[in-house]
């Protein structure tokens, strides 16, 4: 009996040592730049989108995000001219599935949710509609506004490659909520959303981040 009680008592004393307490939340802000929008400029130089982001850990493993950017489309081709300009923003939270078992661990595996809004002006001063059977004709569409609200579900990683410098990607699926009803023309590209003709695009974002302590 004595032996057993001593053993149990020893285990109880050791238990607190095996519990790993997560480090306290240190205030910071992490600024990000969407690299994929720059890469896109090489494949389709007529569409230019720049996007930045900021995130901060408000509660343990919960990251508040604010993202925004601008869009410019200018294309003058033989068969059409199309111009657009606008802005967009997204806000939402990410949850870190990894947790933070020790202070040196800054890598993140994230799932998240965003609400997003985009607004733009666009016009087609000239376009040609080719129709071999009935005959081709030209037209124009005056400058008009367009807006869209949508939500996104995201999943991805952020890895600290150097001290305070992170690289990461997220895979996002976008679900439109409300948009301009019966526009005269569908926008070619909706800032922050993707090509206007897509109903629910799935996009990949590559980003670089720098973490600033507060």
């Amino acid at each position, binding site marked *: 009996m004595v032996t057993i009680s001593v053993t149990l008592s020893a285990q109880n004393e050791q238990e607190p040592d*095996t*519990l*790993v307490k*997560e480090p306290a939340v240190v205030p910071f802000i992490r600024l990000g730049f969407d690299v*994929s929008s720059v890469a896109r400029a090489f*494949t*389709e130089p*007529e*569409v230019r989108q720049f996007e930045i982001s900021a995130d901060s850990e408000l509660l343990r493993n919960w990251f508040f995000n604010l993202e925004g950017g601008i869009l410019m489309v200018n*294309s003058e*081709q033989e*068969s*059409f001219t*199309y111009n657009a300009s606008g802005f967009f923003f997204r806000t939402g939270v990410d949850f870190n*599935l*990894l*947790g933070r*078992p020790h202070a040196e*661990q800054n*890598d993140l*595996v994230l799932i998240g949710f965003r609400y997003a809004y985009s607004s733009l002006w666009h016009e*087609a001063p000239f*376009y*040609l*509609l*080719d*129709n*071999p*059977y*009935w*005959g081709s*004709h030209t*037209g124009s*569409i005056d400058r008009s506004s367009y807006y869209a609200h949508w939500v996104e579900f995201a999943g991805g*990683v952020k*890895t600290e*490659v150097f001290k305070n410098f992170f*690289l990461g*990607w997220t*895979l996002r699926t976008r679900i439109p909520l409300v948009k301009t009803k019966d526009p005269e*023309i*569908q926008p*070619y590209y909706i800032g922050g959303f993707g*090509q206007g*003709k897509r109903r629910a695009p*799935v*996009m*990949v974002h*590559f980003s670089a981040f720098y973490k600033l302590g507060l």
Partner: protein
Amino acid sequence: MNTMMIAYNYISGLFLGKRLLLVILLPVLLISCLNEELCEDVETVPVRIGFYAVIENEEEPVNLIVDSLKVHGLGKDSLIYNYQRNISRIELPLNSSADSSAFILYFPAPPEFSHLAKDTIWFYYEVLPTLISMECGFVSFFELKEVKHSRMFIDSIFIEEVSVTNILDEHIKIFPFIDDGDN
């Protein structure tokens, strides 16, 4: 080790080694490349039509094969189909410079009735100019508002899909009169 540590070691061992970041990025990069839009080879987006018959004891209309069919636009001489044989689906180009188009369909018939074996279909729609891509430029999509027809061979027409785009959906079902052999 608590559960959190075990989970972290497991996931980080699988996914998060910094040298593995590129390995993670590579397939994602490929996915994003595949996601890029290809230039579709489209000049006009046609309205797609199928021929059907309602058969007793069949829940769904059955696809019908027409022996031969000639089609041209109303007021146009050039033929879209020139007595094409064994045809069950046709594609008709709508006129993007108007808000309606009409087509005359000639069905197979004995020579003495050939002048009667034709129907006219009128499509009423809204033209939706759409910028497909920087390479392809603008293409007309359409939203069908109404379809009318004469009733020589065509019994009825059903609009399956009002949105005429480059998605390969069938938009119209045509139900010709069927000779059931009782008469």
